[in-house]
């Protein structure tokens, strides 16, 4: 049984004052349904990805909220796994399809983050780390420790981190739905405000509003984008329990499973949407996914190996950095963006990589156009 991406929906990402969480969920869902050309009543179940609506807006029970969009009230469930909520919701939908319970389902991810202050937003995100045992730390601080370990072990440089951000902004400039559609230079990144040593403001992805949706079906068609493989891996929730901070066992495990299921190896992948919540996260991911040997991703980035014309196009949407990071939407958005590029035949084989917290959860999907 194979799973096809039958339709995609994606809202603008950014500070969207005029759109509520419900508006965003509705817009992405119905765009995906319209694109699939399936009647709305053919949606047999809905899987909603969201991290913090209970803390951001006091709204929970999102499975029922989205189900209520449809007169036939399909079964709805909400899935939370910090910033990997989107990837995890896709997985739950895929398991349900493969079980034979449903033939066509909706997966929609959304987050409304800008109704609260940046400080309150940071506090909600910090709930994805170990509250008591990592007290006083922030996400930039945890990734700052990872960056320092990577610099010390592999000689990764400030310039290489800055090059990641500049590259993702140059990609985001071509994405009309991206939060930031402007170029920034590596020098601007290197001179931006220090957040948690060595990470600076322009190493960090922003707080964003936005939603993304896909219709997944086991009803096959001659042409289309297919989910060839997926995998789910874990690392410890607490950074201090890891023996090596420069690698995520979650990503390595998820990639191993996705490759095995798809029969597609890393050398065949032409484009990747990966989880660059911080610049260092992109380098760690490229190494853990197997695109470059440990310690080589920084140099490869500076040499232009991760953009158009290089070894693999990394984050053509602009990634989390330039495209924005409404956390519940991100994992779904990665699949939407790549599906559209595959549909246009810009690429034939692509991969998504979605991470929760400081690497505790990772989800990998491998997509191919038939």
């Amino acid at each position, binding site marked *: 049984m194979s799973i096809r991406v039958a339709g995609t929906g994606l809202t603008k990402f950014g500070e969207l004052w005029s759109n509520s969480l419900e508006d965003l969920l509705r817009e992405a869902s119905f765009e995906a349904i319209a694109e699939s050309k399936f009647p709305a009543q053919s949606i047999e179940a809905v899987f909603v990805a969201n991290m913090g609506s209970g803390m951001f807006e006091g709204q929970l029970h999102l499975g029922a909220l989205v189900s209520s969009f449809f007169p036939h009230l399909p079964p709805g469930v909400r899935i939370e796994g910090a910033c990997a909520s989107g990837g995890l919701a896709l997985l739950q939908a895929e398991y349900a399809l493969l079980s034979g319970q449903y033939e066509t389902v909706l997966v929609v991810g959304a987050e409304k983050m800008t109704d609260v202050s940046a*400080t*309150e937003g*940071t*506090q909600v995100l*910090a709930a994805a780390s170990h509250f*008591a*045992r*990592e*007290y*006083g*730390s*922030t996400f*930039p*601080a945890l990734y*700052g*420790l990872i960056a*320092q*370990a990577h610099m*010390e072990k592999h000689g990764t440089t400030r310039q290489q981190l800055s090059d990641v951000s500049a590259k993702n902004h140059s990609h985001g400039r071509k994405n009309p739905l991206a939060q930031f559609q402007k170029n920034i230079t590596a020098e601007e990144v290197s001179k931006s*405000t*220090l*957040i*948690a*040593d*060595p990470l600076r403001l322009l190493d960090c992805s922003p707080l964003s509003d936005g939603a993304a949706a896909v219709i997944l079906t086991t009803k096959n068609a001659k042409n289309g984008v297919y989910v060839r493989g997926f995998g789910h891996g874990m690392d410890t929730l*607490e*950074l*201090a*329990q890891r023996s090596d*901070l420069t690698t995520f066992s979650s990503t390595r495990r998820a990639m191993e499973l996705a490759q095995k299921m798809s029969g597609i190896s890393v050398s065949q992948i032409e484009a990747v949407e990966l989880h660059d919540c911080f610049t260092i996260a992109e380098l760690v991911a490229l190494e853990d996914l197997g695109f470059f040997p440990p310690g080589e991703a920084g140099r490869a980035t500076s040499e232009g190996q991760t953009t158009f014309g290089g070894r693999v196009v990394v984050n053509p949407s602009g990634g989390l950095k330039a495209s924005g990071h409404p956390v519940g939407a991100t994992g779904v958005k990665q699949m939407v963006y790549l599906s559209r590029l595959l549909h246009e035949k810009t690429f034939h084989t692509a991969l998504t990589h979605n991470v929760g917290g400081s690497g505790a959860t990772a989800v990998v999907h491998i997509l191919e156009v038939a």
Partner: protein
Amino acid sequence: MISPAQYWRQNKEWQNWLGKQGKVVGVTRVHVAPPGQENFAPYSMALVDFILEKRLFMVAGREEVNVGDTVECVLRKVAQPDQCGIIPYGIKVRRF
């Protein structure tokens, strides 16, 4: 924010940590602090190897520590008092 019940549960752990020494294996300087810690910034977060386990702790005051330094656990204020009225204390480390 730490609730009174969370605070009460954490208190019981203090005696296991006070005076304990370990070696710094990673450190980052936090310039933008979370709510409750703004008045401490900039402060350091140190990943400390206590041989039997590693833990991440705030560094006391504005002291800067480096990888390889030996640090000891001390009791310090870890956040500004919140609306519950608690003055939250907890374990931090300082250079030994």
